[in-house]
């Protein structure tokens, strides 16, 4: 086995190294984050004032659709896979991922799939404009021709996700160092194991639903057409059977990251480790039986409304266990507030706000008022931005010194945090109010009384976007040099990844360590 990376750019094309592949995933994800972010800024610029100023309604719809698709499948998911690639082998004492070549294939599919997806913007009839949830018949009978390219892009990015998930399962179950029993695994590894199972279970269902669309559009089938005995609501059931576990795919690894960071900076072991594991598993199980809470208003039998309402509320129990454990870990700890910790604490607080607005939405009779308003937009951005994005950012700051061997600039990191924190709250908090007041989502124009809050939100969005430039700058500077990091980096952090030098050698644990 070679000792270092091969020279030249083909290193990145041909690599089988989990660290190379992890880095590529993270850079790809950041590029998509900026692209999807620019689309969000187009949306916010248009919504700065009532009336149509900047874009046409059709293009506005393409922006909301592409923003959602790119952020979900291009930014958040690949970022977590990138972190898993970098950290899981190091955390369990494995020499690499279990299936290194397939690992590289999983990554490289993504840039091609997204090139195909983004190219639809330049096609006749424009890009998909039916929302990231692509409800039929908007996405079938009334879709632009580019929907076919969208369908096949989803197919290959799904193949990439399934292969990535299989790789992670095989790695975690098969490649742990001697003594690394399941209940000794770091929580990031646990949450990823469970996430991988969610991916293997639901990505094929997504493939199924886009296949049904394809057949309805081009081959005359009647899945979503009542004229032939099908049902557009069937689309929503199949889609959300994928879609609800999908939102936990975007949050469970985040739980793992903050569960690594908070103990380090509270200088206390994680409170309630095993309850964290069981809570994660319970959330994953529940995620399969709550999907119809996305469609309370579509017309379901009352028994369905009740079942999905109560099942959804049950999720608050294991999630509450987690929040309790994080808070208790901090309680009476000797805390310091480095950048990763700031992002993690903000995660705990703001994710909880998102969780509470989720509980409000879970109440079926109340949901009839909130459904498809900006309140929903506020809710899921509160769980995804300070949830998924903040935890990824925290993880990058936390492990960056281990990856590069250099410390990032702490003051710049803190400035990034405060700008992002203020920006995100200014953007999304007012959306609760306009939503409750009745402003519908996915519209380019709105009634005058919503103007004030929309202007505030737009200002916040540009602030949040600008803060990310600082992040990019800080990361690039750290990659290129800076104060050398120690092997431990932080004060007595837990985990095998801190037992190897900084930067982590190209190959770690070629001989497995023994875990006591």
């Amino acid at each position, binding site marked *: 086995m070679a000792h270092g990376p091969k020279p030249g750019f083909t290193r990145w094309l041909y690599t*089988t190294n989990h660290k190379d592949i992890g880095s590529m995933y993270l850079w790809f994800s950041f590029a998509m984050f900026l692209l999807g972010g620019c689309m969000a800024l187009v949306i916010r610029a248009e919504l700065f004032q009532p009336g149509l100023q900047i874009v046409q309604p059709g293009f506005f719809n393409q922006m909301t659709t592409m923003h959602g698709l790119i952020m979900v499948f291009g930014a958040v998911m690949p970022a977590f896979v990138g972190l898993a690639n970098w950290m899981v082998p190091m955390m369990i004492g*494995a020499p*690499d991922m279990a299936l290194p070549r397939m690992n590289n294939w999983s990554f490289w599919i993504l840039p*091609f799939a997204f090139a*195909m997806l983004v190219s639809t913007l330049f096609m006749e009839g424009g890009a998909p404009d039916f929302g990231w949830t692509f409800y039929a018949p908007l996405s079938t009978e009334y879709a632009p*021709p580019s929907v076919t390219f969208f369908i096949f892009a989803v197919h290959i990015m799904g193949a990439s996700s399934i292969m990535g998930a299989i790789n992670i399962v*095989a790695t975690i179950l*098969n490649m742990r160092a001697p003594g690394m029993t399941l209940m000794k695994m770091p929580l990031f590894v646990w949450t990823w194991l469970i996430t991988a199972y969610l991916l293997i279970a639901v990505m094929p269902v997504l493939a199924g639903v886009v296949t049904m669309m394809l057949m309805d559009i081009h081959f005359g089938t009647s*899945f979503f057409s009542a004229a*032939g005995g099908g049902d557009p609501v069937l689309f929503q059931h199949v889609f959300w059977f994928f879609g609800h576990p999908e939102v936990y795919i975007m949050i469970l690894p985040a739980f793992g990251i903050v569960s690594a960071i908070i103990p380090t900076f509270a200088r206390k072991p994680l409170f309630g480790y095993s309850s964290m594991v069981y809570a994660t598993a319970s959330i994953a199980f529940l995620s399969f039986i709550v999907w119809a809470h996305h469609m309370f208003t579509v017309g379901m039998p009352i028994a369905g409304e009740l079942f999905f309402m109560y099942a959804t509320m049950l999720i608050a129990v294991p999630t509450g266990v987690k929040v309790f454990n994080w808070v208790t870990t901090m309680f009476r700890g000797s805390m310091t507030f480095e950048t990763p910790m700031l992002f993690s604490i903000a995660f705990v607080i703001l994710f909880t706000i998102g969780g509470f607005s989720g509980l409000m939405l879970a109440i079926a009779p109340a949901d009839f008022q909130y459904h498809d308003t900006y309140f929903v937009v506020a809710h899921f951005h509160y769980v995804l931005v300070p949830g998924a994005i903040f935890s990824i950012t925290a993880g990058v700051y936390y492990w960056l010194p281990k990856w590069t061997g250099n410390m990032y600039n702490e003051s710049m990191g803190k400035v990034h945090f405060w700008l992002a924190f203020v920006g995100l709250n200014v953007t999304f908090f007012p959306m609760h109010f306009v939503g409750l007041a009745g402003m519908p989502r996915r519209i380019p124009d709105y009634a005058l009384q919503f103007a004030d809050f929309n202007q505030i939100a737009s200002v916040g969005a540009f602030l949040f976007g600008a803060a990310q430039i600082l992040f990019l700058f800080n990361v690039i500077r750290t990659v290129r040099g800076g104060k050398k990091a120690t092997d431990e980096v932080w004060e007595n952090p837990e985990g095998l990844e801190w037992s190897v030098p900084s930067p982590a050698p190209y190959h770690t644990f070629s001989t497995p360590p023994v875990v006591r």
Partner: protein
Amino acid sequence: MATESSYYVPEQSRLPIFATIGIFLMAFGAATWINGGSSYIFFAGSLAMATVLWFWFAAVIKENMQGLNSDQLKRSYVWGMGWFIFSEVMFFAAFFGALYYIRTFTLPWLGGEGDRGSSNMLWEGFQNTWPLMVTPEQAVSGDAAKVVGPKGIIDPWHLPLINTVLLLASSVTVHIAHVYLKKGNRKGFNGWLTATVALGGAFLFFQIEEYLEAYQHLGLTLESGIYGTTFFMLTGFHGAHVTLGTIMLLIMLLRSVIANHFKPDDHFGFEAATWYWHFVDVVWVGLFIFVYVLGA
């Protein structure tokens, strides 16, 4: 648990990036073709993909014969195949679920029963039957309807029953082949595996017969409303999987006959193909019950 000290991590490899180009050309080409463009890109991509897979499997087989694969590494392949099959199960689950939802909820509602029976107002005169011979559109527009139900459906106790026997038998024969392989009896292995491939081929032959009958005589097509939709999508995806499984087993047979591959204690390539074969068999049993018998 890691028990060995060295896990073989392959050197850098060109296979993944070529496989990416192959799968991308297939996807992009398929979309282009379906949207009315040329089919060349799709076929170029398929050829590229098949070529890459050939070299990829050849590389893995060679590594194994060189003794690079520890027991631990072989377990990675076992986990990989197992969870791949589970993902296939979930793919079929989406289509079985659609069938269930249509029959349990959609059609009764469209026919005026139950909680959402008021939707019958849109399709006055529509009656819920299964198999659905008269579509809601037909009930309203009569002969002017574009989506017309089938005139007849496939009799489960004729071709489908034969196919059930063939496929169940093939699961037995492939198991017997496996037993012979474990005993080191090459001749028995080749013979029973040949029988399995032949049974798979026979199944596909009858499946094509059945489709021809449906299209030519029964008016049962993809376009004949939700019955035809669910019938062809479920049996069609199953048929595609049988085709793939037959090709896998055929390759295993050729590897054994031509290259003398597989040892009594080391033959996961073959075993993975048998897992896949048993999986398509189980799906067929589900199809026979839920699509053919309970659908008639």
